[in-house]
């Protein structure tokens, strides 16, 4: 489980982030962090500032993991 550094703009130093890698999906990330892929909407909602569709994430995107 790789947790990356937060974007500089974030004001919570304890917020958790993950950088999207090739082959990742929100479901896969949710399963990794929460043990339950059905919790992917939690990640989607936390990243609405950069995601418009839960099925469309890009390699290199830094997603906040609530």
């Amino acid at each position: 489980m790789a947790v990356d550094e937060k974007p500089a703009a974030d004001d919570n130093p304890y917020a958790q982030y993950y950088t999207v890698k090739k082959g990742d999906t929100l479901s896969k990330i949710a399963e990794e962090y929460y043990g339950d892929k059905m919790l992917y909407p939690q990640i989607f909602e936390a990243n609405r500032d950069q995601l418009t569709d839960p099925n469309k994430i890009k390699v290199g995107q830094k997603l906040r993991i609530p």
Partner: protein
Amino acid sequence: MRKTTPWIVTLAAAVLLAACAGQKEPATQAVQKAEAALAEVRADAAQYAPDNLASVESTLTSLKDALAKGDYKAVLAGAGGLTSSIAALKDATAAGKSAQEAAVAAANAEWSSMAADMPKMVEAIGSRIAVLSKSKRLPKGIDQASFDAAKSGYEMMQSTWSEASAAAASGNVVDAVAKAKMLKDKGAEVMTMLNMSAG
């Protein structure tokens, strides 16, 4: 010789009485002076140098007892030492007050930082616990015991933060900082339990 003895004894007694009477005034003044000097510093000393104060109070009480018994010689013999002790008490009080003020200033600065930081830590942990509580099974690396311990730790953090905030609001910033540090340590522990990286 027999006729002169009573006269000499009377004279000796008179001289002794005069000598004692001559010591009464300076002895009384010495005690009054010590009482006045101690009164100036007593309130602060009680806060910043209580042990020194207790010692000086004890010495003063002894001299007042001696004065009441007419033992002026003992009063005058002890007055010098008491004056020195009161001077030392003033110094100790000033040093204690200065150290306390420095500690409060440092605590204020530290509290300012922690007051901004700790709620974010609590929020990040609370957020993760809330999501994990919805999960049908926990992720790899987190067993049920760890998760339960993390939840307990989180509850402790919330109550500790309330206590720290209350202490700060009542002006006890040193205590507030101590509690915030406890919270931070507990937070780091909980984050590890939840496989979260430190901030």
